[in-house]
């Protein structure tokens, strides 16, 4: 009871935090059809600045620290990333009106990490005076990449299985040899108006789709994405050079303000994408609401094990929970689009942007901070 009332008080206080205020402000402003726009160049630059700052401060702080401590949390991050995808594969994908590839892609996006959500959590942790390991932000790729890789691999296995059974059907009915009419196969819509040459390409492609999925290109693409690149570049510069002066005169003081602008964009975006979410099965909305909280709690639990075993800080546990709770907004979508091309982006981007991210920021972050504070108090 005490825990709950303490949590609720803190939660209501959080609603007044500027971070959340700007998020909600953005949602409202888009809902009333305001013409206000944050130019794309500014959005991209803000994201770069935030991840650079997080990377630099991590890199600077890591210099002296003992990185073996990072081992267990990193393993837990990796496990969480993979587990999230399998949860989605065996819950969301089984629901009515939900296509399997769409569900796998959605789970992959929810397993991947949002740098913006993480930045919001770091700010709130600092406001609450809660300490965390300098390297905690470096857990990001350990969850992000495995989640994306798992989703793409699972989807490829599923698609190639589908095709096998389709082909079996086709040869059974022997349509192919009898007619030049193209045959609609699997999830692909039939498009008879295409010239026949197309069909040859398609069959070719189908033939080759049976081979295994290569994992390294997916990892490489994730690392090359603009979000992870900026974070890793920041980490490297923090570690290898002496950027303290520029960090303290530029990246650090601008952090909060730029975050407020990013929250505004994310709020506007959430409203704008609601329409896309509406076009897909309602189960996506349900998943997008529950999953971030559940994923965060799983990671929180694993983090607590590390807390007990290796002394991982409670602040660090919160960060682990938040990156699990978050869903990727920058690098994840294009990676999935290329890796699972047959999945409908409206399903996964809609779920993540319109519901998942606001839930992770507005409910998830305060929840995990509240939990940690209650545990500290206890």
């Amino acid at each position, binding site marked *: 009871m005490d825990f709950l009332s303490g949590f609720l008080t803190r939660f209501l206080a959080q609603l007044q935090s500027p971070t959340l205020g700007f998020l909600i402000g953005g949602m409202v402003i*888009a809902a009333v059809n305001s013409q206000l726009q944050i*130019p794309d160049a500014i959005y991209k630059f803000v994201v770069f600045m935030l991840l650079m700052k997080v990377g630099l401060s991590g890199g600077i702080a890591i210099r002296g620290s003992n990185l073996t401590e990072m081992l267990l949390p990193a393993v837990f991050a990796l496990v969480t990333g993979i587990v999230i995808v399998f949860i989605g594969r065996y819950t969301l994908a089984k629901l009515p009106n939900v296509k399997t590839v769409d569900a796998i892609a959605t789970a992959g996006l929810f397993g991947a990490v949002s740098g913006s959500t993480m930045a919001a959590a770091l700010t709130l942790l600092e406001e609450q005076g809660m300490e965390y390991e300098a390297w905690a932000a470096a857990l990001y790729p350990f969850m992000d990449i495995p989640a994306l890789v798992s989703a793409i691999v699972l989807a490829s296995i599923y698609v190639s299985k589908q095709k096998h059974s389709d082909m079996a059907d086709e040869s059974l009915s022997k349509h192919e040899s009898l007619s030049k009419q193209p045959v609609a196969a699997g999830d692909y*819509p039939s498009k008879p108006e295409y010239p026949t*040459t197309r069909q040859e390409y398609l069959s070719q*492609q189908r033939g080759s789709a049976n081979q295994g999925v290569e994992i390294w290109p997916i990892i490489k693409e994730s690392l090359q994405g603009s979000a992870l690149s900026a974070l890793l570049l920041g980490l490297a510069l923090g570690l290898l050079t002496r950027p303290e002066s520029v960090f303290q005169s530029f990246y650090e003081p601008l952090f909060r303000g730029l975050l407020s602008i990013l929250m505004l964009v994310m709020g506007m975006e959430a409203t704008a994408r609601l329409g896309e979410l509406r076009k897909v099965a309602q189960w996506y909305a349900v998943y997008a609401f529950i999953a971030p909280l559940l994923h965060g709690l799983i990671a929180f639990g694993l983090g607590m094990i590390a807390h007990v075993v290796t002394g991982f800080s409670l602040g660090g546990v919160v960060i682990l929970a938040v990156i699990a709770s978050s869903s990727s907004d920058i690098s994840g979508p294009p990676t999935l689009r290329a890796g699972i091309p047959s999945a409908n982006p409206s399903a996964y*981007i809609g779920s993540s942007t319109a519901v998942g991210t606001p839930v992770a920021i507005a409910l998830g972050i305060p929840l995990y901070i509240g939990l940690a504070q209650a545990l500290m108090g206890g």
Partner: protein
Amino acid sequence: MTQKASKLVIVTEKLLLKKIAKIIDEAGATGYTVVDAGGKGSRNVRSSGQPSVGDTYSNVKFEVLTPNRDMAVKIADEVAAQFFDDYSGISYVCDVMEVLHAHSF
């Protein structure tokens, strides 16, 4: 003096920019021109997580002058086969074109 040509136009998702450029190159076209475009079609898929509330378009429009209609159709077929099942896109050809000046055509 001038030379007849076909113009192939492909409008599709920006994400595919490099891949389509490669197909065009490999088909032996002497070049291509590309512009950022917005648009609406039957699919209307936005392929990136990039803010749609921003001010950028998420399609690209390719224009390729080809010495004959066959090369244009070949490129279009290849692009459609590889991408149009999963991505938004349209392609069309405009036949009566005369190239007046070009460094290689």
